[in-house]
């Protein structure tokens, strides 16, 4: 087990160790396991070489807005499909599910053309618009919403609560674990998104973090590994910190989804 952990963990350790080494030490052979002289210069250099502040802002905005929109869509949709009556709603549900089979890569070219025709290339609107729909979230939460106790929901309705109120104040509080799991998965997925922002942005000021470090690398080449690793840490640190706190929700949520599905 130690071996398994080492093989998985060493690249992550190596990223941290390199970021704190001096440029001279980075290129010593054989490499040193611990930085001989600790330095934070790489972090300052990385921040100076690329507008990381702007990358953070862009990543935060796109992740937050996109996650919020996706979650809202998924929650509204799953409540409607699981708990409201509508003629032939099974067919409509199939239309949502079938979208799971159309991956981003297949839609990327036409969506680029759509966004371009709206004049949204290199804007937040362009970065965000195609990410708002949710097929996966609706699918993930459906079983849970179907299993919500009808009596409680009906009681709320009888007390005069509208569907809007029942959804947010009765159904949602009873669904906390599945909602948090979906939230975490969506945040991580949005934060790491690469293909679409790569295509739809064309200036440094609109790039998100995963695209930003890629361009930092193409500019610095393989000459400044300490600086590049510092940039990589800027990108991965928020995800790792988040994971530390909510590990259980993510891991167990994924596992539960697979066992039921």
């Amino acid at each position, binding site marked *: *087990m130690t071996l*398994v*952990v080492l093989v*998985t*963990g060493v*690249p*992550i350790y190596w990223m941290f160790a*390199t970021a704190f080494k001096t440029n001279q030490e980075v290129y010593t*052979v054989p*490499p040193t396991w611990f930085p001989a002289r600790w330095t934070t210069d790489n972090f300052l250099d990385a921040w100076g070489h690329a507008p990381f502040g702007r990358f953070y802002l862009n990543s935060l905005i796109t992740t937050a807005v996109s996650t919020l929109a996706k979650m809202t*869509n998924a929650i*509204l*949709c799953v*409540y*409607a*499909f699981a708990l*409201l*009556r509508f003629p032939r709603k099974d067919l409509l549900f199939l*239309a*949502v599910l079938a*979208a799971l*089979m*159309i*991956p981003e*890569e*297949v*839609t*990327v*070219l*036409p*969506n680029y*053309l*759509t966004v371009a025709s709206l004049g949204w290339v290199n804007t937040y609107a362009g970065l965000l*618009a195609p990410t*708002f*729909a*949710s097929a996966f979230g*609706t699918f993930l939460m459906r079983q849970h919403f179907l299993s919500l106790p009808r009596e409680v929901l009906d009681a709320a*309705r009888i007390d*005069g609560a509208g569907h809007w109120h029942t959804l947010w104040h009765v159904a949602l509080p009873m669904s906390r674990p599945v909602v948090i799991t979906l939230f975490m998965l969506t945040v991580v997925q949005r*934060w790491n998104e*690469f*293909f679409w922002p*790569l295509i739809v942005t064309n200036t440094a000021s609109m790039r998100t*973090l*995963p*695209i930003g*470090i*890629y361009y930092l690398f193409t500019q610095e080449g*393989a000459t400044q590994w300490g600086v590049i*690793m510092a940039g990589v840490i800027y*990108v*991965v640190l928020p*995800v790792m910190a988040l*994971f530390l706190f909510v590990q259980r929700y993510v*891991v167990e949520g*994924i*596992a539960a989804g*697979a*066992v039921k599905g």
Partner: protein
Amino acid sequence: MPLSLSLPASAGTRERAVARPPLPPLRGALRERLTFLAFVAPNLSLLAVFSYWPLVQNVWLSFVEWNMIAPEQLWVGLENWAIVLSGADFRQIALNTLLFTLFSVGLTLALGLSCALLLNQPLAGRNAARAVLFTPTLLPGSAIALVWIYMLDPRWGLIRTVLSWVGIASPRWLIDPAWALPAVILVYVWKAVGYSVVIFLAGLQGIPRELYEAARVDGAGPWDRFRAVTLPGLGPISFFLLVTSLLSAIQAFDILRVMTAGGPVIATTTLVYQLYNEGFVAFNAGRAAVYSLLLFGVMLALTAAQLRFVERRVTYS
């Protein structure tokens, strides 16, 4: 119900009328339908615009020649399809995609199962180990790719040092066409294995203890127990994992873009990567659309296989 309208309300219905929401039933039903539409409409219209309409557009674009800028799209019939499918590179691209997908998924599942079996033992620190294994899954592919470009560097990389311990000279991983594909597979597997560990662990914990006890009573050794209890018990979840892993391996892009850009030459160019090349490097919308539809076809076939399997499972169990 015209009949009930003509009859005086019985005691029972009057009671229900009190308990019901203030709206009369008919308006309540109408309201429910309108609410349904209001809740579902945003998501469905977004899916229509950004998922379904692109499929239609892809079909159209695959029949035209267009550089994505000119106002005119020139109808060329099946020419794009012919050029792509008979092109000198297509055979290699298809082979790359096949090799990348099969090796990535095969290794991910084999390693994932081994690690899951290990972590299923009551060992100290297994939760921490699970967390470490799962971490790469969550990190951005572009960041991971950069770490590994450095690790694999034949001059200063850590892998070079590790190989030198056993007296092997480091290959020039990303520059040598023979080693580039194995290198990106290695990185993909490193990133993906944690996900399959978590899923396999969930599957292992779902196998009833009594089955192992029964097998032991019948005199089955560890290997027999693995073959007769563990493997069949993991069957359904393995299939789920197989399909989802195949689907995500076929879509791999960020690691390829950053590590090799499809190269050297076209040694790591897959269907997705060629779609990107045609669409966003060569600005050839027609051929990019052909690649999009090929990719969609492969994914559709895989999903159909999964659906059929699930259906059979439901029918026979």
